[in-house]
C-alpha cells in the first residue's frame, strides 16, 4: 500500500499569554490509499487540531504549526501558500464536521452550497454543477434530490444535513475525507446510516478517510486502523481487530475498560482515575504516568518513544521496551 498522507513530527502550538501550549506535540501518522483510519482520544487530546493542521486551517494567531511535515500526495502541505491550499481544500481533501446543524450556511440553499465547490474546482457551468449536485444528493440517499437542492438548510433534519455535507465533501471526488466526529450529534439509527454511507462512498471512490471520534463503537464499525492520542501525542497505533483484542498502552486499556459491556452487569462503569493533564502543565516523563496503574520509576523521569512492536503496531510505553525488565 502506498501512503497518501504522512504526518512527520507535526507540532502545532497555541500561544496563550506568552506561553506556548503544545496542542499537538510531534504526531506521526500515515494514511494509505483507500484506508480508513480512526483518530481516537478524549477531549483536548489534540485530535481535532491534528485534522485542522492537515487542512492548514489552524486559527492563526494564536495557533501555529511550529514543526513537522504534512506530506500529501507528494507535496508538503506545511509549505504551500494560501492560494495553493485553496486548490487542494475541497478538491483533494475535504472535511465534514460534528455539528451538521451549524456547518451549512443558513441563508444559502443546499444547491448553492454544493455547486460552489463544483464551479470553483472543476470549472463547471452553473447548470452543469446543479445537475451534478442533484446527482450527488441522490448518491447520498435523497430520493427527492431535485427538490432538496432548492431547499434551505433549516428545512432539513440533522441526519439529512450531514448527508448534504457528505455530498458537498465528496462532490469533487477527493482523495482524503476528514470527518471530525461526524456522528456525535446524531441519534443512533441515523449514526449507523451515516457510517454505512461513508463506508460505501469510500469504497466507490477509493477515498481514504480520517475519522476523528471518541466513540469506540464508531471505530469498530468503520475503521481499518486506529491511532490513539493522549495529551497531544500518539500513544498507540494498531489494526482495529488487534486493538480491540489486545490493547497495549495502559491508556487504551483504560478506554476499552470504560466501554459498557452487555455481558457484565456493573453498577458503575469503570473509568480512568484522574484527568488529562492541562497542556500548559505537562508532566516531565510519560504524560499518562500520573494516571497509569502500571507506572514505575522510569515513567516519571523519561518520556517514552513510540515503540514499533511489529509491522502494524506501535505503543508509547516502557512496558514494551525490550531493555526493560518486566515488572
Amino acid at each position, binding site marked *: 500500500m502506498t501512503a497518501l498522507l504522512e504526518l512527520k513530527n507535526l507540532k502545532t502550538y497555541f500561544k496563550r499569554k506568552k506561553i506556548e501550549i503544545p496542542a499537538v506535540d510531534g504526531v506521526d501518522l500515515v494514511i494509505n490509499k483507500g484506508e480508513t483510519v480512526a483518530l481516537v482520544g478524549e477531549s483536548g487530546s489534540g485530535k481535532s487540531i491534528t485534522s485542522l493542521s492537515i*487542512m492548514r*486551517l489552524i486559527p492563526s*494567531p494564536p495557533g501555529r504549526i511550529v514543526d513537522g511535515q504534512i506530506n500529501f500526495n507528494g507535496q508538503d502541505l506545511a509549505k504551500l501558500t494560501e492560494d495553493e*491550499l*485553496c*486548490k*487542494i*481544500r*475541497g*478538491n483533494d481533501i*475535504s*472535511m465534514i*464536521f460534528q*455539528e451538521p446543524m*451549524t*456547518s*451549512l*450556511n*443558513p*441563508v*444559502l*440553499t443546499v444547491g448553492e452550497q454544493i455547486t*460552489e*465547490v463544483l464551479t*470553483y*474546482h472543476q470549472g463547471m457551468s452553473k447548470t452543469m454543477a446543479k445537475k451534478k449536485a442533484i446527482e450527488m444528493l441522490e448518491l447520498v*440517499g*435523497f*430520493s*427527492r434530490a431535485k*427538490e*432538496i437542492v*432548492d*431547499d*434551505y438548510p*433549516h428545512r432539513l*433534519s440533522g*441526519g*439529512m444535513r450531514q448527508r448534504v*455535507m457528505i455530498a*458537498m*465533501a465528496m462532490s469533487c471526488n477527493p482523495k482524503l475525507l476528514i470527518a471530525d466526529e461526524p456522528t456525535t450529534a446524531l441519534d443512533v439509527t441515523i449514526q449507523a*446510516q451515516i457510517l*454505512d*454511507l461513508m463506508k*460505501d462512498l469510500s469504497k466507490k471512490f477509493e477515498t481514504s478517510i480520517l475519522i476523528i471520534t471518541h466513540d469506540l463503537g464508531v471505530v469498530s464499525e468503520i475503521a481499518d486502523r486506529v491511532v490513539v492520542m493522549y495529551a497531544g501525542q500518539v500513544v498507540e497505533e494498531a489494526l482495529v481487530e488487534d486493538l480491540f483484542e489486545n490493547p497495549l498502552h495502559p491508556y487504551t486499556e483504560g478506554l476499552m475498560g470504560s466501554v459498557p459491556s452487555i455481558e457484565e452487569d456493573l453498577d458503575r462503569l469503570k473509568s480512568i482515575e484522574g484527568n488529562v493533564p492541562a497542556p500548559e502543565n505537562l508532566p516531565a516523563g510519560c504524560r499518562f504516568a500520573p494516571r497509569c496503574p502500571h507506572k514505575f520509576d522510569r515513567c516519571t523521569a523519561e518520556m517514552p518513544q513510540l515503540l514499533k512492536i511489529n509491522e502494524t503496531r506501535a505503543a508509547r510505553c516502557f512496558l514494551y521496551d525490550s531493555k526493560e525488565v518486566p515488572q
Partner: protein
Amino acid sequence: MAKINLAENPSPSLELHGIKTTRDTMLQIVARKFFRNKLAVIGGIFLIVIISAALLAPVIAPYSPEKQKLLEKLSVPSREHLLGTDRFGRDIFSRLLYGARISLLVGFASVLGSITIGTFLGAIAGYVGGIVDALIMRFVDIILSIPSIFLLITLVTIFKPGVDKLILIFALLGWTTTARLVRGEFLSLRSREFVLASKTIGTKTHKIIFSHILPNAMGPIIVSATLSIGYVILAESGLSYLGLGIQPPVASWGNMLQDAQNFTILLNSWWYPLGPGLMILLTVVCFNFVGDGLRDALDPKINE
C-alpha cells in the same frame, strides 16, 4: 447498500388534501412573507405613491413650484390650492411634490453611499481582525468623536451647499454606524462552523466575506439603511432649518418646514408646516416599516 429513504417521500394524498409538496422559489417565499406583514405593505404602498408622485411631479403639479402670487399669500387650502399657499403665494402641494424629489434623492443616494462604505469597511474589520480592525475602528472613533452637526455645518459652509455636496457629505459621515454594526455581526459570524466549512472547500477569503457571511448580516444592514434614510431626510431638514441645506427658491421638505418656522405662520397658517412636516414623518415611518418587513422576509431562518 440499500438506498436509504428518509421520511421524505411525497405522498400523493397530501396533494389531494390541497397541501403543496413542491418548493417555491426564493422570490415567492420572500414576497409571501413580506405581504403577510400588513404594516410593511401599507408602508410600501405609501412609499410607492410618494416616489411616483415625485417622479411625475411636472405632470401632477397644478402650478410651477416657484411661481409667486403675492396677492394670494398664506391662503387656506381650497379647491384652487389643495394644501394652501406659503408666504410668497406659492402652491404648497406643488412645492411638496418637487420637494419630494430633492428629499428622496438626498435620502436614497447618501444612504446608498454610506451603507456601501460602512458595510465594506465593517466587514473587512470584523473578519480580518487584528491591526486592520484596529486601524479601521480607530478611524471610525475619530469621525464619531467630532460632533456631526458642527462638522456638517463647517463642511457645508466651505463647499457651497447643493444637492450633490449634501449627498457626498452625508455619505462620507454616515457610514460609521453601519461599519460598527457590520463589524459586530462579522465578529460573531466569522467563528461559526459554516465559515470553517466553507474554508475546507477552498473558498477564497473575499468570497467568504461577501458571499457567505454578508448575506447572513443583511437583516441588520437593511434595517439600518431604512432608518438612515429617515435620519438623512431629517438631517437635511435640520440643515435647511439653519439655512445651510437646499437653498431657496428650490423646494425641499426641510427648507419648506424651515420657512414655516415662524411664530405668526405657526399660529395663523397651520396648513403650511403641516404639509412638509407630515410628509417627513410619514416617509420616515414608512421606510422603517418596510425595513422591518424586508428584514423578516429576507431571513430564511424566520419561518413563514
